[in-house]
C-alpha cells in the first residue's frame, strides 16, 4: 500500500465519526406519507355552517389565547389566522354564491412544516396523525411558515420570547379520550375530550372523529345529496391528503383551498435530498475523490522535473 493511500484511509477513519453523524439527518425518515392507523380529524361542511363563530370563541378558551381585538379594540374580530387565532371563520361572497369557510391546521398526512423543522418541534404523531408543536426544541427559524401551503403556522412577531402558534386539534383535550361506538358505526367522544370547535358547533357543521369514518360520512353525504355539493371531498388526496376534510357547495379554490395535486408538498424536496444523500455514499465518495486528486497533484508537483512548475498545495 502506498503512503498516499494509507494516509487517505487513516483520515477517512478519523472523519468516520463526523461522517456518520452528518449522515443521520438523512437516515431519520420523515412521516411516510401514509395515513396513520388511528388518524383523527375533522369534517367541515359549508352547507351546514351558519357563521356564528362559536367555534372561534371556544377555540380561544380551550387554548388559553388572548382575544384578537386588533381591528377596532372592541370585538374579538381576527381577519384571519394569526398568532392569537388558531381557528377562524371566513366568508366568501360573489353575485351568485355565499359560503362560510373554517380555517385551522389541516393536519396534513405529509406535513411540510414538520419536514422543515430541524429538531422535530413540529411533529406528526405516529398514531393519531396530529401535527403538534413543542417549543422546547424550536429555534424560531420560521421555516415551517415558509413551507406550509395553507399558511397555518403563525409566529409571535410581537414578543421577545416568541413561539409558533397553530391548531393542534386540541390534543391536550383529545389525549386518552375514550370513545364509544354508536349505532351508526360512528365513534363518539365524551364531552371535553374532543376539539373545542367541534363540541360547540350548534349545527354539527364541523365534527370530530376518526379520519376513515369522517371520509365515509363525507362520501355518504355526497351520495345522498349530489346536487348540494361540489363532487369532491377536499383533503382526501389533496396535497398528499389531509386529516381535516371539507365538503363545499362553492369551488374549493374560492374558499382558499387550492388544487395542490395529490403529492405531498415535501415530495420534490425529499426526492432530491434523498437522491443526493442516500446512505451518505455520494458525499464520502466525493470527499475521497477530492483528497486523492490533490494527493496526485502534489505527487506530480514533487516529481523531479516538475519542481518549478509553480503549482503547489500549500495553504
Amino acid at each position: 500500500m502506498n503512503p498516499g493511500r494509507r494516509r487517505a484511509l487513516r483520515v477517512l477513519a478519523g472523519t468516520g465519526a463526523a461522517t456518520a453523524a452528518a449522515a443521520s439527518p438523512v437516515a431519520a425518515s420523515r412521516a411516510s406519507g401514509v395515513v396513520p392507523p388511528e388518524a383523527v380529524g375533522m369534517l367541515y361542511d359549508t352547507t351546514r355552517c351558519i357563521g356564528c363563530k362559536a367555534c372561534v370563541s371556544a377555540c380561544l378558551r380551550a387554548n388559553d389565547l388572548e382575544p384578537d381585538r386588533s381591528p377596532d379594540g372592541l370585538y374579538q374580530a381576527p381577519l384571519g389566522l394569526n398568532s392569537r387565532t388558531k381557528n377562524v371563520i371566513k366568508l366568501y361572497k360573489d353575485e351568485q354564491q355565499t359560503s362560510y369557510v373554517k380555517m385551522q391546521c389541516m393536519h396534513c398526512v405529509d406535513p411540510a412544516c414538520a419536514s422543515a423543522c430541524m429538531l422535530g418541534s413540529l411533529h406528526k404523531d405516529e398514531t393519531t396523525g396530529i401535527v403538534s408543536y413543542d417549543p422546547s426544541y424550536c429555534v424560531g427559524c420560521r421555516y415551517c411558515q415558509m413551507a406550509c401551503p395553507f399558511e397555518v403556522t403563525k409566529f409571535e412577531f410581537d414578543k421577545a420570547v416568541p413561539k409558533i402558534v397553530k391548531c393542534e386539534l386540541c390534543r391536550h383535550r383529545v389525549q386518552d379520550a375514550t370513545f364509544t361506538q354508536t349505532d351508526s358505526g360512528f365513534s363518539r367522544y365524551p364531552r371535553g375530550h374532543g376539539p373545542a370547535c367541534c363540541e360547540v358547533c350548534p349545527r354539527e357543521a364541523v365534527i370530530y372523529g376518526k379520519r376513515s369514518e369522517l371520509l365515509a360520512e363525507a362520501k355518504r353525504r355526497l351520495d345522498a345529496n349530489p346536487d348540494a355539493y361540489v363532487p369532491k371531498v377536499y383533503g382526501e388526496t389533496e396535497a398528499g391528503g389531509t386529516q381535516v376534510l371539507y365538503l363545499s357547495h362553492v369551488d374549493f379554490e374560492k374558499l382558499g383551498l387550492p388544487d395542490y395535486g395529490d403529492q405531498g408538498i415535501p415530495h420534490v424536496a425529499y426526492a432530491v435530498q434523498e437522491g443526493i444523500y442516500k446512505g451518505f455514499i455520494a458525499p464520502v465518495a466525493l470527499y475521497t475523490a477530492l483528497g486523492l486528486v490533490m494527493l496526485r497533484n502534489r505527487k506530480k508537483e514533487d516529481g523531479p522535473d516538475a519542481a518549478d512548475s509553480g503549482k503547489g498545495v500549500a495553504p
Partner: protein
Amino acid sequence: MSHDTVHSPVGGSLWTRPVRILLVFVALGAIMTVWRFAAGLGAVSNLNDGYPWGVWIAFDVVTGTALGCGGYAVALLVYILNKGEYHPLVRPAILTSLLGYGLAVLAVTIDLGRPWSLWKVPVFFWRWTGSPQLEVALCVAAYVAVLLVELSPAFFEKWSQSPDTGLGRFAEKGLRFVTRWQVWIIALGLLLPTMHQSSLGTMMLLTGPKLDPLWFTPWLPFLFLVNCVIIGYGVVVLEGHLASSAFGRPRETEMLGRLARVVMWVAWFFFAFRLIDVGLRGQLGRVFADLRGFAFLVEMLLLAGGALIFTSETRRRDPGQQFLGGMVLITAGVVYRFNVYLVGFAPGDEWSYFPAVPELLITFGIVALEVVLYVAAVTVFPILAGPREEPARA
C-alpha cells in the same frame, strides 16, 4: 514556486477615516439588534406570517454565504484543477469566505426567534430530522471551523516569529499540523460548500406551490451550486482589484483575465440551463406576465451582460472591464438568490413585504462589520500576496 508565495501584512494604521465611518454603521446596527432582542422581531422588521423571511435571510445569509464562495471557487481551481498560478488568490479568498460565513451565522442568530435554543441543534442529534435546513446549519457550522483551520497558517506565521513564547511554540505546532493534514482539510473545505450550497437550493423546494414556477425546479440544488461558483469567481476578481488598488499590491490582471474566461463559460452554461429548464416546464410565457417575470428578466439580462463582457479577449485583459464584469456577475448571482428566496416567493396577495429601516440598518451594520474585519485582518496578518511595501495611506 508557489510554495514560496509570499504573504505579508499591509501594515499601517487601523484607525482610518473609512474605518471610522464603517464603525458608525456597525454601531447603528448593534443598537437596532439590542432593540430587536428586547422587543421582538416585529418591532424592528416588517417580517410577517406571510413573509417570515426577509432581507436578513435572503441577503445576509443566502447571499452572504454565496459571497463567501470565493474560497470554494479558488480552492477548486488551485487544488483540484491544479492551476497553481492562482495560488496568490487563495488566502484573501479564504478570509472573505470566513467573514461571509461568520457574519451569515451572526445574521441567523439575529433572525432566529429563539436563538437561545440554537445550541440544541448540533447536540440533540437523536432528534435530527431530514430537514434540508438542518443539513445547511450543520454544514455551515462545520465549514466555518474548516475555514478557520485553512486560514490558520496566516495567524501561525505571524505568531511563530516570536519562537520563545508559548504562543510561538503553539503556532509552530499548529503550522506543522495544518501542513501535514492540508490535503484532507482542503478536501473538507470543498466538500462542505458543495453540500450546503446545493442544500440552500433544496430548502426552497419545500415551499412547493408558494415558489413561482420561474424558479421552482427540481434542479434548484444544482443551480445554487453553479450560481455559487459564478459569484465566487466574481468575488475573487473584485478582491484582486480592490487589494491592489487599496493596498498597493501588484495587479494580477493577467491571471484574473484567464480566470474571467472560466467564469464566462460557467455563466453562459447557467444562462442556457435556466432558459432550457424554464422553457421545458412551459413557463417562458410567464416572463412578461407580472413583476416576478420582470425580476426573472433582470436576473437573466444581468447574467448575459456579465458573460458578454468576459466573452471578448480584449475586454478580459482590461483591468477596468474585469472589474465591471465581476461586479455585474456578482449582481446577477445575488439577484438570482434574492429572487428565489424573496421575489419569487408568493404566499398570496394578502401579504406584502418591504424591509423596515431598522431591519436594513442591521443588514448594513453586518456588511460594515465584515469590511472592517477584512481591513483589520489584512492589515495585521500576512494574508495578501506580495512583499511588504510602505504602508498605504488610506
